[in-house]
């Protein structure tokens, strides 16, 4: 929870309100009082002392949520902290992030989850929902204390960063998670197929002489985990799907009535392997790796037809000196919290491929539904987690522009259109005019 | 594009007479043709060496072995320019103990000859090295002088002195050009 801003009333004046959850798309004022939406209507009067924010030509939406963030605290505070990561989050328009457990030590017990919750209460700029490990130390060998972590505030469980290698272990986890009605977030990667793979197996692995990471390394575990979810009736959320084959598997499972959700990342949507050239730019080294143009198209189609529930950033900050290593040695991942919304706005909305209502579905409603987070709608009485988007604001992605402590972005140098200008978390203004509001 | 020469300092007849005289001088100085090897510096020095050998055969009835030497790898001006076309060095006789007559068309700074002597030494230990040139245009930068000179041609360092030889150019002449900028003469 963010630290308090001494403002009782905020009036968002004249913005275009978009919330597909309640079929809302209209120009109106939003009055936020004491952390809740007090009123929505035309020409609302600002109470005495209210902060009035002109939102003409802007979009007012339920707050965006990232269900896949690496905050690095504890352990790698040089790369990111709960404070810096949530600054980056609000800068990118998010009102909540779900923190992955692969910190150092790994968040695999109640105390570790409580540390995140308590630190976030003190230092975070937006809501932080911890995700706990599925297995102890993410080793894939024994169950972590899922119940204890649920009690401490974990919203889901994942061994993200690695796949759970043994099918029997995954079955055990999904069965046990049902005790607490917990969601399992699967990072799908069969290590016996992936090996030392660092780029998609195909054209680029051949050309650059890099170990290949075959699509089958993901798809076999997607197929496996869908079957196990069917068997156990556990809620399953598939993380960062990267291939057309994975999307097809999910589509088929959903058609068969399985309660599964999945996410795709902006880098898998908008970049493909051809971006990796002879300069071996390690900012393009991801896990799963960038795939082909056909896969990008399939992921976008998955979003458009509802197969894919949400866009998640997989924000993975890394120290500059570690990304400066040889491609095969550098760590996987790109930062993403600050570029996700501008990328979707530029490449899907501005191009006419998607509407803003769809963006709100993929980045606000879908994420909450995927991890069973409290619903947020633009209605009186609703929680005032609100993102205001300026669709005409220009962004040049540069290291200076980031609030994140790390700058390992795959999108450095991109010129994008559309970004968050204001963010309210529980009625508190944490981003104003595109700038993070310091306490 | 070839500009017009400012002056023709030797015509075909003069070149021919110079070659004949040098051939005589070489035979005179070395008391005949035995123990001599001609080594021409590519490309026009090599052509000139062939012409000299032919003339010696006519005069003396003796075969003098002829080799060609590419001194690209011995130049001291690699830093300034690189010879794009490296020719093969081909010296089909033993240097060891022989009198080597280095042959070049134009003697200028002496740097080419310095490089050529270094190169020759790497092939073996000649009994002596002599130098024959068609034209000596002055401006020496090293203590080098020719033993046999077709013609001394005083020139300005701005000028370019070029020999034309039949095997390469289809005619024999020595010409002076004004403009030295289009192809710096670094000899």
């Amino acid at each position, binding site marked *: 929870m963010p630290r308090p801003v001494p403002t009782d009333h905020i009036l968002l004046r004249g913005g275009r309100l978009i919330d597909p959850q309640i079929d809302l798309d209209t120009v109106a004022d939003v009055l936020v009082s004491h952390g809740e939406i007090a009123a929505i209507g035309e020409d609302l009067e600002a109470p005495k002392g209210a902060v009035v924010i002109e939102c003409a030509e802007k979009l007012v939406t339920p707050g965006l949520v990232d269900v896949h963030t690496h905050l690095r605290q504890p352990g790698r505070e040089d790369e990111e902290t709960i404070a810096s990561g949530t600054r980056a989050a609000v800068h990118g328009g998010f009102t909540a992030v779900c923190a992955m457990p692969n910190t150092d030590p790994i968040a695999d017990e109640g105390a570790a989850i409580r540390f995140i919750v308590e630190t976030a209460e003190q230092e975070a700029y937006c809501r932080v929902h911890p995700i706990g490990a599925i297995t102890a130390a993410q080793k894939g060998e024994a169950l972590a204390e899922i119940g204890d972590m649920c009690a401490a505030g974990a919203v889901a469980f994942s061994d993200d960063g690695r796949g759970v290698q043994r099918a029997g272990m995954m079955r055990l986890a999904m069965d046990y998670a049902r005790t607490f009605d917990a969601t399992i977030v699967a990072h799908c990667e069969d290590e016996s197929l992936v090996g030392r793979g660092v780029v998609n197996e195909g054209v680029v692995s051949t050309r650059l*002489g890099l170990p*290949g990471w075959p699509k089958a390394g993901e798809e076999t575990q997607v197929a496996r985990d869908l079957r196990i979810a069917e068997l156990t009736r556990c809620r399953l959320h598939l993380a960062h799907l990267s291939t057309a084959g994975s999307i097809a598997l999910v589509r088929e499972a959903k058609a068969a009535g399985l309660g599964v959700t999945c996410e795709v990342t902006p880098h898998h949507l908008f970049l493909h392997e051809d971006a990796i050239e002879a300069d071996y730019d390690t900012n393009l080294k991801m896990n799963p790796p960038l795939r082909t143009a056909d896969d990008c198209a399939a992921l976008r189609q998955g979003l458009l037809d509802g197969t894919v529930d949400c866009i998640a950033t997989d924000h993975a900050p890394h120290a500059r000196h570690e990304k*400066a290593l040889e*491609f*095969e*040695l550098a760590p996987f991942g790109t930062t993403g919290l600050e570029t996700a919304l501008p990328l979707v706005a530029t490449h899907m909305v501005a191009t006419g491929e998607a509407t803003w209502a769809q963006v709100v579905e993929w980045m606000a409603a879908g994420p909450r539904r995927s991890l069973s987070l409290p619903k947020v709608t633009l209605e009186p009485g609703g929680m005032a987690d609100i993102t205001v988007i300026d669709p005409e604001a220009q962004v040049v992605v540069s290291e200076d522009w980031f609030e994140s402590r790390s700058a390992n972005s795959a999108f450095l140098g991109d010129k994008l259109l559309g970004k968050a200008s204001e963010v309210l978390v529980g009625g508190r203004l944490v981003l104003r005019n595109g700038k993070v509001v310091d306490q | 594009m070839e500009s017009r020469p400012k002056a023709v300092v030797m015509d075909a007849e003069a070149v021919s007479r110079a070659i004949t005289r040098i051939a005589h001088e070489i035979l005179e100085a070395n008391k005949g043709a035995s123990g001599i090897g001609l080594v021409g510096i590519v490309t026009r020095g090599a052509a000139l060496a062939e012409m000299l050998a032919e003339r010696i055969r006519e005069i003396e009835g003796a075969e003098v072995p002829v080799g060609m030497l590419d001194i690209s790898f*011995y130049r001291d001006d*690699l830093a300034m320019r690189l010879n794009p076309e490296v020719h093969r060095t081909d010296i089909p006789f033993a240097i060891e103990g022989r009198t080597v007559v280095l042959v070049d068309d134009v003697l200028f700074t002496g740097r080419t000859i310095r490089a050529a002597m270094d190169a020759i030494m790497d092939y073996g230990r000649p009994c002596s090295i002599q130098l024959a040139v068609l034209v000596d245009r002055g401006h020496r930068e090293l203590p080098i002088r020719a033993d046999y000179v077709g013609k001394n041609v005083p020139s300005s360092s701005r000028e370019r002195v070029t020999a034309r030889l039949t095997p390469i150019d289809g005619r024999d002449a020595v010409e002076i050009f004004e403009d030295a900028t289009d192809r710096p003469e670094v000899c």
Partner: protein
Amino acid sequence: MLQTRHIIDIQDLTADEVALVLDTAESFKEVNERRIKKLPTLRGRTVVNLFLEPSTRTRTSFEIAAKRLSADGINMTGSASATVKGESLADTASTIAAMACDLIVVRHKYAGAPRILAEKMDSHVINGGDGMHQHPTQALLDLFTMREAFGKLEGLTVGIVGDICHSRVAGSLIPALRMVGATPVVVAPPTLLPARPDVLGAEVASTLDEALPDLDVAYMLRVQMERAEGMPFPSVREYARFFGMNRARLDTMKPHAKIMHPGPMNRGVEISADVADSDRAIVLDQVNAGVAVRMAAMYLLLGGEAIA
């Protein structure tokens, strides 16, 4: 006289430049046959052999090439330098750059490292082999050897046999053969093929026996036998049976066909001893060409620029 400052990928060179390197190497080969095998050409230049992966043959070849050109050669090997896993390449680059060297020959365990080094410093860089990526001077010396053996390169069909997917030699040789108008054909079990041999420009033959009669050269790659777990073929014996060169297979080839190998050879595995020792094998010609080609590469990269 090359357009490129570095030779990292064989395709840093144009087809004309490949021919220039080979022609220049002819002249250096002549030098290597002399009693005094030394030229003053690169006097005062410093060549660093940065070998961060063990390699005696390639390092020695570059070292001899540098010495014969009178360059000052310094060897930095993996164990001698501080570069180990964990030190950033940029640090390595700036350390070497600070020593003001003219040319760095880099052998590195990981693909792309020479390019990253090249971007961080002013020196010229020759890739002496990077990971599973490229080894361009090996490809050039192979072309040189083939041109010597056949008098031409255009129209030759060259079978590359064995561990293509882990081979930086194949990574450079396949595109190099395409550049000079030859046809590369790869022969290997799919466990040893890259995902997309077509991307490199290679045709794929299904079996060695089928391919042999069409080949002018059978280029046998060294089999890596160190990996026990996940070994890409069941046994050395079975590999030799289906993918090894032996006398019986040699007899099915054209009479003029040659056998090449980048060395060191595993006799009895990818090549039988009698073939290795026969006059059809031109493996030592390759080694010989290596020095001349590397001299040519150094000469052409360092020529034509002012001494710093």
